[in-house]
């Protein structure tokens, strides 16, 4: 059933968020530390186990796949809810510092990720159990 996939996703999300809150508490920070990251790792491991042992049905995977593909629409809604006016009216310091930090960080990406690879390396991503996320 489709809901099984959605429920697995939702369960991982909640567990991850709770773990993230606890990590935040332990660190003495009033913020969720890595909750989403924990949830992602959890989901990857659980789905991998279920797929390999054949315990998850096609409709259940479709439930996961649906939300996987809803990601870009959600991001567009997020973009439409950003405080763009705030970014543009924050004064020259905010704009210059914001641009500079992005430029410097971009420049450091190749330094940390090793030598730039060719486009062929994208094939490393291999066949995925997920649906097409290209929509």
């Amino acid at each position, binding site marked *: 059933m489709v809901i099984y996939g959605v429920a697995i*996703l*939702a369960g*991982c*999300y909640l567990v991850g968020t709770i773990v*993230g809150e606890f990590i935040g508490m332990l*660190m*003495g*920070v*009033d*913020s969720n*530390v*890595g909750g*989403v990251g924990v949830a*992602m790792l959890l*989901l*990857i491991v659980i789905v*991998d186990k279920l797929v390999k042992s054949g315990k998850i049905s096609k409709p259940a995977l479709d439930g*996961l796949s649906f*939300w996987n593909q*809803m*990601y870009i*629409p*959600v*991001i*567009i*809604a*997020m*973009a*439409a*809810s*950003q*405080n*763009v*006016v705030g*970014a543009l009216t*924050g*004064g020259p*310091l*905010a704009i*210059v*510092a*914001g*641009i500079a*930090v*992005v430029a*410097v*960080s*971009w420049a*450091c*990406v190749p330094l*940390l*990720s090793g030598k*730039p*690879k060719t486009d062929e*390396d994208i094939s*490393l*991503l291999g066949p995925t*159990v*997920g649906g097409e*996320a290209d929509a």
Partner: protein
Amino acid sequence: MLDVILDVLTSNGLVTAFVIVGITMWLAYVISNKLTRGMIHGSAIAIVIGLVLAYFGGVATGGSKGLSDVSFLAGIGFLGGSMLRDFAIVATSFGANFDEIKKAGFRGVISLFIGVLLSFVVGVIFAVMFGYTDAVSIATIGAGTVTYIVGPVTGAALGATSEVIAISIAAGLVKSVLVMVGTPFIARFIGLNNPMSAMVYGGLLGTTSGVTGGLAATDPKLVPYGAVTATFYTGLGCLLAPTVLFILTDLIF
């Protein structure tokens, strides 16, 4: 007549948002295919349209949540709010390769620390260049260039003025918007085409909305790898900025 329509749209906010976002994406893909012959990815155009709409929404309402401050479009704020955003980000990991994450794990962690430190230092340099001399203001602006959440958290902890906190939030917003829009264009120049570099990217830039939005417009397959590191970034920034990084700033200035 118009009242009845607006009432229906307002009381069915999330469903209205599905329609608006659907139309936006359709329009963006038409522009992508017809005007740029697929050169610029449809989702990149859709994100830019979203940001432009957010600008007009902000101007029209004076609010801080873009288009979703328009009452009958509030559902867009829910669809793009933190709950569904994080839920959908977790869903992107369905299809990610755990071995790739393990392989890049160490560099991902290193890039997180370097990313927070580097962003903070850049912010500090510009705060000093613009004439700030007290460690509290300098550290708050430095924290703002980490992310727009770290800025106000740090500012509140250190007792910075509201003007400085506003600047720190704005700097973080500029970063986030620029990453969202710029990632697809810069990707080929910085080798951003594999899981390893996507994880480093998430760790260095760190703004979750910027990184995941930017990667989605570059290659949706890279999103989970960038997101898995980026989601630790703001927390790490909230931990380091008001403590270690402030103490170091205070020693220097």
